[in-house]
């Protein structure tokens, strides 16, 4: 190891915002061909540290310490990829711009073809197999996972010696995730230093050579992955790595439960392309339905149809047997409150400028007629339960971490006291500890608040275990649905089989000492 010179280095970095140290004396070395992982609770400063390698800090932060990067460019896959995709440019243009830098040496005439070659190659590496089709699309015409992979493709195209990947596998299904991990491993194998910021321990374990465990901005433990895994020294690490207790959707679909939400003959289109066909899907009261499926299979589209955010469909969405208006603009307050949706891209769903608390509280004011003062108190309480204490909640959305925003978005929906809560990948950006907390909370609500039903959209099988029933989507079709038990233990459809296959990620054999 000693023979390697680091391609990037952080020394005693401290980032202080408003008197609070969000990163506290963190040191980090990025070695070529090695994967360095930062793990830690949501809000522990992973993203802030990772961005320091790019030379970027929160505005008006007080920064001390040093950051050294060998080369000019650093690849970066941010936590919320949608934000870095230019809404007015096609995916192709966004990629070509970067590819152009790679083909500068070639004669002018050969450049175009070479750039295209590069782009398609990168898309393939980023697991976007029908890449050439996506090139003509605008970013908003991609699913969340596809956006993420486009951003990954950009980072791969760049050919930088350091890549900072912030939660590169959130929002990816197990299959895709496996491939992305392989790809990152291959990237490292080419001598590129990878900094992996992730809450996904499986991914970390499979990829990382070295792990830094963060808590409240401080590195509490660091060392080679295997050592940390096998012999965690800090109690916090132990907690973080603790085996997940298998939550099971114990909410019994009792005989007195009735169908709250029914989707019938739904065929949803984007423009003229049909992306979703769901002949029948029912959600019973008090039940938790998980929707599983690969990235781009139409999960979000389904959720948005339910929520009234996607209008171009035939068929109907029935609440208590009554068809809901297609657009949420035409829904009555009661209907709005009854069906709430938690956005996949939490950051984009908040107004960056206003305090999160205010934004969350409005739900209660508008949908339940709670006086503003009480609404704020209630919002503060819900946020607190979700781990966003007072001071955090009072900040503007721009000043919260990805996981924090995800929780705020959940709180915003919960404040409506919905009967159907549609959660789109709400735990994707959360560490195990926080995730456990949230899922517990949701399970508790299911149990105690009668009438609440959950639709959990997830790629995460562990999360899906919370559900009592699971529906599996593939390429817009519901290929299988049934009780969670059945689906997870004895999947019938080959696609489900491939999804639920014991997703042991191959640890890398190379470079481990």
């Amino acid at each position, binding site marked *: 190891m000693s023979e390697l010179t680091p391609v990037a280095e952080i*020394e005693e970095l401290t980032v202080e*915002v*408003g008197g609070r140290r969000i990163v506290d004396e963190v040191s980090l070395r990025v070695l070529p061909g090695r994967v360095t992982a930062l793990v830690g609770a949501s809000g522990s400063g992973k993203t802030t540290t990772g*961005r*320091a390698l*790019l*030379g*970027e*800090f*929160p*505005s*008006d*932060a*007080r*920064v*001390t*310490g*040093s*950051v*050294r*990067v*060998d*080369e*000019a*460019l*650093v690849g970066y896959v941010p936590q919320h990829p949608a934000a870095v995709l230019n*809404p007015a440019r096609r995916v192709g243009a966004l990629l070509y711009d970067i590819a152009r830098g790679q083909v500068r040496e070639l004669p002018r005439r050969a450049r175009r073809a070479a750039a295209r070659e590069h782009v398609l190659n990168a898309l393939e590496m980023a697991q976007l197999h029908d890449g050439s089709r996506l090139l003509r699309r605008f970013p908003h015409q991609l699913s969340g996972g596809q956006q993420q992979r486009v951003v990954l493709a950009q980072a791969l195209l760049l050919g930088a010696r350091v890549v900072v990947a912030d939660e590169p596998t959130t929002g990816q299904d197990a299959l895709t995730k496996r491939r992305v991990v392989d790809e990152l491993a291959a990237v490292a194998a080419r001598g590129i230093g990878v900094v992996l910021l992730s809450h996904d321990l499986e991914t970390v374990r499979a990829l990382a050579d070295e792990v830094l465990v963060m808590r409240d901005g401080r590195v509490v433990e660091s060392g080679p992955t295997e050592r940390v895994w096998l012999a965690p020294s800090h109690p916090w690490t132990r907690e973080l790595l603790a085996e997940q207790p298998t939550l099971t959707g114990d909410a019994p679909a009792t005989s007195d439960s009735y169908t709250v939400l029914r989707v019938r003959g739904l065929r949803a289109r984007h423009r003229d392309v049909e992306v979703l066909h769901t002949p029948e899907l029912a959600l019973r009261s008090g039940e938790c339905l998980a929707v599983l499926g690969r990235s781009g299979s139409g999960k979000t589209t389904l959720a948005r149809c339910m*929520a009234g*955010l996607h*209008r171009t469909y035939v068929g109907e969405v029935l609440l208590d047997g009554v068809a809901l208006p297609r*657009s*949420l*603009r035409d829904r009555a*307050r009661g209907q*709005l*409150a009854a069906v*709430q*949706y938690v*956005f996949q*891209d939490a950051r*984009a*769903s*908040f*107004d*960056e*400028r206003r305090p999160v608390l205010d934004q969350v509280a*409005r*739900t209660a004011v*508008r*949908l339940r007629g709670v006086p503003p003062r009480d609404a704020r108190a209630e919002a503060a309480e819900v946020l607190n339960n979700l781990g966003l204490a007072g001071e955090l909640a009072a900040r*503007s959305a*721009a000043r919260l971490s990805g996981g924090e925003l995800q929780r705020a*978005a959940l709180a*915003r*929906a919960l404040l*409506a006291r919905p009967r159907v809560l549609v959660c789109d990948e709400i735990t994707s950006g959360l560490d195990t500890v926080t995730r456990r907390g949230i899922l517990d909370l949701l399970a508790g609500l299911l149990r105690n608040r009668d009438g609440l039903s959950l639709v959990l959209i997830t790629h995460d099988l562990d999360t899906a275990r919370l559900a009592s029933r699971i529906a599996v989507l593939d390429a817009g079709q519901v290929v299988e649905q049934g009780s969670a038990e059945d689906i997870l233990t004895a999947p019938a459809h080959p696609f489900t089989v491939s999804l639920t296959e014991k997703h042991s990620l191959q640890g890398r054999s190379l470079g481990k000492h």
Partner: protein
Amino acid sequence: MRRREKWLPSGRFALGAALVCVPLVLALFGPLFAGEPGPRATSFTLGGGHWLGTDFVGRDVWWQVLFGGRPVVVVALAATTLAYLVALPVGLISALTHRTWLEEVLMRPLDVLLAVPSLLMILLVASVFSPGAAGLALLVALVNIPDAARIVRAAAADVASRPAVEALRMQGESWWRIAVGHVGRSILRPLAADAGVRLTGVLYLVATAAFLGIGVAPDAADWAVMVDRNRTGLFVQPWAVVVPALLIVTLTMGCNLLFDALLSAGRDVTPERVVVRRGVDVRDRTKEPRP
């Protein structure tokens, strides 16, 4: 952090404020100092007790300058505000609606207004009605509405389709809060830029209208009217044009600079700034917020 949010780029702010102050003070308090108008002299002459000379009908230019600010400020501001009072809702409605017919109903008739030469419009009103200052403000606003509405719509279209707006709808937020509180606020910068420039356009439209017989008298003490009517004497007695024109220039320039300064001060979501330029070793670099 709090401190930082209140902090204004003081230099620019001060400059803008100073620029606005001169014409504003003159406009507001000028009439108090003006006193009685003296006797007339030959038009466009210098000297003879008139320290800025005389205007196109032989009146004292300085006296006119003192008196001529109020109508400019009042009518132009009123007309611009009025134009936006209509253009803003119309533009926002058509940007926020998903009903194409509603958008067409709102915007297409305005397009028709755009295609009618405004000269014809003003001529007609001039000859059919004889509106006073208020009518003038209305008319000038009317001429400006289609244009402003289109700009509002164009600026708002993108913001209106973002997930943040969907989330607001999901919360059952009222139209006004979504439109004004969120979308309107997000497009404040283009709006301010447009309004700042529009204000100037309105000033001279008022002057043109005056000459066609609408609103103020064609020989009114009004800076814009002065610039317009004294232009024939530009080479004999430049002050009659230059002084009011300069005042208008300072007024609009000041307004715009003030807008700019306020907007960049109000922006609390400053982009996270890039501090370390890469490829270099940046040891012990300390960055502190500027005072």
